[in-house]
């Protein structure tokens, strides 16, 4: 009895301390600053319409970012997600055009994503090949395959199913885009998994110290394998939303998308070294970059400058993080 009460008395400060230490609070402050700055300088920036629009735009990166962050936390990387976005649009659109069924199209896309996840995961976890190399490889292969298959022409969505179109412009209660709802639900579910399910903690442990995880009885390879499958499936979901948005399967879809996601994830405090970071951090990273780009556009700054600024912010954020970590570890 007394033990339980002392333990829960400790919960409050440690939670707060963890929030500070994990940098989510710092990210939140950054996001608020970005919002405040552009609200003051850009007309209509802080309108419900603009906010929800940006949220809708961010939903792709939020969804795929979950997978990216999970793979990072397991100590690996997955940069094949951009190409995957373009690739899964093919089975999706083709099946829908043939069958007029969203369910079949989505199932086909998910099955394809699953296969890619299995391939990536197998090569990294069981064949022991470096994940950067593996996913760089599948990234090129998929992109090349899409170019070859489409002959660099878009395959339009002829079925025009209402349910599919709703994915791009439908809004819950006429306010929040469905794509954002999907992203938020997925974030909540996977965020819960990462913090409160044994499997989520296993991912952290494997990324934190593979050898220790093995000694604790974990199947390290299986954990990594599954992380790649999760990543591919979430990128597939993002790809489906993107296809709905552009109304076709396009060979250039998702070009450089992986780097946007990686940038946001790293900005969100998820370490490439594994074992560190959270999905909340990743999500804040995505939102910061998305609102920043929206606001800068509102100020009339050309895209080139947005790229430069984004790059500088990422380096500064990671440098800050590193300095803090070094101090925490006492030199």
């Amino acid at each position: 009895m007394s033990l339980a009460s002392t333990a829960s008395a400790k919960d409050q400060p440690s939670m707060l301390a963890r929030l500070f230490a994990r940098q989510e609070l710092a990210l939140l402050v950054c996001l608020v600053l970005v919002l405040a700055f552009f609200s003051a300088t850009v007309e209509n920036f802080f309108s419900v319409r603009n906010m929800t629009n940006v949220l809708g735009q961010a939903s792709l990166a939020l969804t795929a970012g979950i997978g990216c962050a999970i793979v990072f936390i397991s100590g690996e990387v997955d940069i094949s997600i951009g190409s995957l976005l373009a690739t899964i649009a093919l089975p999706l659109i083709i099946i829908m055009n043939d069958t007029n069924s969203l369910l079949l199209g989505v199932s086909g896309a998910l099955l394809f994503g699953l296969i890619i996840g299995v391939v990536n995961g197998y090569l990294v976890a069981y064949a022991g090949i470096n994940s950067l190399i593996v996913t760089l490889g599948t990234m090129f292969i998929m992109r090349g395959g899409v170019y070859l298959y489409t002959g660099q022409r878009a395959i339009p969505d002829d079925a025009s199913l209402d349910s599919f179109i709703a994915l791009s412009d439908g809004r819950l209660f006429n306010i929040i885009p469905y794509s954002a709802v999907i992203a938020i639900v997925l974030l909540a579910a996977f965020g819960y998994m990462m913090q409160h399910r044994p499997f989520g903690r296993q991912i952290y442990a494997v990324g934190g110290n593979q050898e220790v995880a093995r000694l604790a009885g974990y199947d390290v390879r299986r954990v990594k394998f599954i992380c790649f499958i999760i990543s591919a499936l979430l990128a597939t979901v993002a790809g489906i939303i993107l296809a709905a948005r552009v109304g076709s399967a396009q060979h250039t879809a998702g070009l450089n998308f992986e780097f946007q996601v990686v940038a946001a994830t790293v900005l969100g405090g998820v370490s490439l070294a594994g074992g560190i970071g959270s999905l909340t951090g990743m999500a804040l990273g995505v939102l910061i970059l998305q609102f920043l780009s929206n606001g800068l556009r509102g100020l009339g700054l050309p895209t080139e400058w947005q790229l430069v600024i984004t790059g500088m912010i990422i380096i500064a954020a990671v440098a800050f993080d590193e300095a803090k970590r070094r101090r925490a570890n006492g030199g």
Partner: protein
Amino acid sequence: MSVDFLHPGEGAPIDTNVSALEMRGIGKRFPGVVALDNVDFTLEPGKIHALMGENGAGKSTLIKIMAGVYGKDAGTVRMRGREVDIKSPRDSLKEGIKVVFQEIALISEFTVAENIFLEGYPTGRTGSIDWKKIRAESAALFNRIGFNVDPAARTGSLPVSQQQMVEIARALAHEARVVVMDEPTSSLTPNEISLLFTVIRRLASLGIAVVYVSHKLDEVFEIADTVTVLRDGRHISTKPIGEHTNDTLIQDMIGRRIDNLFPRQRGAAGSKVALSVEKLSTAKKLIDVSFEARAGEVLGFFGLMGAGRTELAKAIVGYDPIISGTITVDGQRLAPHDTRTGVKLGIGLLTEDRKSEGLMGELPVYQNASLASLGAFARLGFVDKAKEHQAVQDYVDRFRIKTPSLFQQIKNLSGGNQQKVLISRWLMRGLKVIVVDEPTRGIDVGAKSEIFALIDRLAGEGLAVVMMTSEMPELLGLADRIAVMCEGRLTAVMSREEATQEKILNAAIG
């Protein structure tokens, strides 16, 4: 048929008539090394079985086979009479074998509490983790053992000694039949060791079979029921502890006798001051520490855990920042305060935490040894490999470092041999002042006597040796002068002649 330390009485009682674990004819070879050759090892429930042997004798390898970390090349393993095939750590954990590994195996980003339940999180009905239970049970566990560790702390931020306690607690958090401790006390204080012994006796009384690996003979005589000695991968003897004396045990371990652990060859220390520390304070711990170390002397620092010896060691070589005070090495001020300047002036540190601060696990033995002295082997900016290898080979021979070759990755060496390589690193460098923090941690008696002889020789050659130790015999046997610390302050400095165990302990308490 297994028992939970925290909730005894919940499991069925252990049958004490059949061996808990029986290993027969175990063989294991690594490239270039026969680590185990036809070794038998049997554990009885409720008995404490010490496993002893020199560095590299094969103790940890035997344990890792038990734990499923390594596969065996030959032999059989039975648990309670039934043959088992342990292929992975998971299989071993399922059989109730809990191991406290020699090298700390914790996730540093996790809290202490989470690390304790790493191998099996308690979950609620929905399969979600019961964090409340994890915190409460780990607090209860530490309470029960008597260790003072904060379950909510981030594990990586704790000192090695506390991490070792977490390791120990972790082995007790789940049901167990066999608990193995591979040098669990290497960074614990006498007080904590006695707490640990209470725990071990309690485990035994619950019917758990305990394996205890240590290089400290007095510990083994105190705790063990049975002793098995390995030498060069072979089984030498298994006897009840009552049949052993210090001498027979050492004889079994190293195959020869050691007459004098502290041979003193060097003459009296000179009067030249090699290291002078004045009013040194650090943000973390040290308050106004001043002392001098002379060329040719061994200055021993004693203190209880948390007294600040490691902090002092790190500060005076330039590794940790200081907030005030001056450090002078051989007449020259250590400024700027960093290790680069330190090494240039001729002061080096042999750290207590070799895994995270000293070793480069993936690199071969010779590179680990020559790391600090590449300049000495350089010609026109290139390292003269032949010269480098020769120099390292000299040390390998001198310290009898057990390694198949200079090119073996150092992580594959036994713990004690890793330590010897690190000592070589600094000796090779040609220093004026060497600071050694717990130099014999995890080192067997044979090698200990070699290292003592070596420290003696270094001082004889005119180095000032500053030695941080918590081993009283080592302190009294080796040091010319003894400095005692308590909570970051220097509380006494005395000469070897005027020092007694009692005086030292009094000063250490403050």
